[in-house]
């Protein structure tokens, strides 16, 4: 058994060797994605459902391409067309889809733990494509894949994550993964968005972006949402930019060969200057390419082999 669990609910459940396996497997799928005929017959006849209760274009498309390149059939079930508006419960929605003999469920939901809830009664593998402010495991895996591609390792690297850590599932999954793989993580942002309790994850917390960036191998910028300003997590966008935006001057404090990452979509000139976003240091588009390969690897690993039960 390569992965110990039937579902991929979060980085939380994976150990370092499982993470390495997923990343190694993704290497092969990156090669497939770069072929002229970008398709292998591996999951022919399997039906995968993209169950998205939150608007998302890139993650959904990435999963869709991953499934298609493995020859699986994919059904997109999104919020707008769903019966959720008619008051059907999440459980009923899933049970109805399952009744159509599906083989895997990719779930994006605004409620933290929704994929865990679904996995409690769903027989097919459930893949978390982002739940509330909890986890976004495939994003963290593709980020790790990209870092490994650029830096050839994860252990010992200094990764600085800047922005709204509190509300970021991307940050949570990345922190968990990077710590498991032996990287050093520094979180930076205003205290209202970077609570001290994050220290329990083994990260360092800095409120000053210059200090946080010093000697970084990887700088991960998070998207800042205007909604947070309305809730007074910070006073104004202008002040946020002045304190926490990544500018070329600030980026100079990182290592010379440091890379810039962003889970997208970018707010140009807000958290990240256009100059840097388009610079040679930016690996943002590589992250997108790698996303498909990593998701192919996950679908392959979870759907391959005979149906199995969780081992623990």
């Amino acid at each position, binding site marked *: 058994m390569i992965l110990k669990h039937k579902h991929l609910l979060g980085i939380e459940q994976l150990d370092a060797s499982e993470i390495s396996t997923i990343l190694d497997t993704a290497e092969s799928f990156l090669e497939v994605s770069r072929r002229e005929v970008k*398709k292998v*017959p591996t999951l022919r006849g399997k039906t995968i459902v993209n169950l998205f209760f939150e608007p998302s274009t890139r993650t959904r498309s990435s999963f869709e391409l991953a499934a298609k390149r493995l020859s699986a059939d994919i059904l997109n079930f999104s919020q707008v067309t769903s019966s959720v508006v008619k008051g059907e419960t999440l459980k009923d929605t899933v049970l109805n889809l399952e009744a159509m003999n599906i083989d895997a469920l990719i779930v994006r939901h605004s409620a933290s733990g929704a994929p865990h809830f679904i996995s409690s009664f769903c027989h097919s593998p459930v893949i978390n494509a982002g739940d509330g402010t909890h986890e976004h495991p495939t994003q963290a895996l593709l980020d790790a894949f990209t870092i490994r591609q650029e830096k050839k390792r994860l252990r010992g690297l200094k990764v600085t994550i800047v922005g709204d850590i509190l509300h970021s599932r991307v940050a949570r999954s990345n922190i968990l993964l990077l710590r498991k793989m032996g990287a050093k993580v520094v979180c930076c942002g205003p205290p209202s968005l970077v609570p001290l309790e994050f220290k329990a994850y083994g990260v360092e917390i800095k409120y000053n972006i210059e200090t946080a960036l010093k000697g970084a191998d990887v700088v991960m910028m998070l998207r800042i949402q205007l909604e947070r300003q309305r809730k007074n997590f910070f006073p104004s966008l202008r002040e946020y930019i002045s304190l926490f935006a990544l500018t070329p001057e600030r980026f100079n404090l990182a290592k010379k060969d440091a890379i810039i990452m962003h889970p997208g979509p970018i707010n140009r000139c807000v958290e990240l200057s256009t100059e840097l976003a388009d610079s040679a240091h930016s690996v943002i588009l590589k992250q997108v390419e790698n996303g498909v390969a990593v998701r192919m690897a996950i679908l392959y690993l979870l759907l391959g082999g*005979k149906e199995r039960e969780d081992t623990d």
Partner: protein
Amino acid sequence: MEEKIKAKVMDARKIKRALERMTTEILERNRDLENLVIVGIRTRGIYLGKRIAALIAQAEKIKVPVGVLDITLYRDDFSELEAQHMVQKTEIDFPITDKDVLLVDDVLFTGRTIRAAMDSLIDLGRPRTIQLLVLIDRGHRELPIRADYVGKFLPTSKREMVQVHLDEIDGVDEVLITEPVEIE
């Protein structure tokens, strides 16, 4: 399950001779060596392929490119496998369209691996011809597939297993017939 060795059917010398003989056959059949490429099927096909390329280089002073094919994603028994197989990279860094592709594997058995390999090759391009070289043909074909070059025909029972060991990974060149034994 353990296995016991029933017979050693080839040693280093015999393997070398078989490869040399097959190389001669390849040269006889392929006039246009510039158009020949070798693709080895993971894992032992790679090394057999490299040895053939070396023998060709020795004889004709021509460097034939060798690629690596991983057929895991093309297997037809994917959902019956007990656990997932690790996928490894396919590394063919030359075009195969309009080439004469020499597909190399260690053992030809049911033919399913070769079927998967051909599907995979055809997704990668449109070769002019595909020829198949195997060190051992042990029979029991389930698909209409036949090798163009065979190192040794080895009639076996279905219960038996054929193990090819190569110096590059196993530290020794030999071909063994083994049989599983139930442990008490």
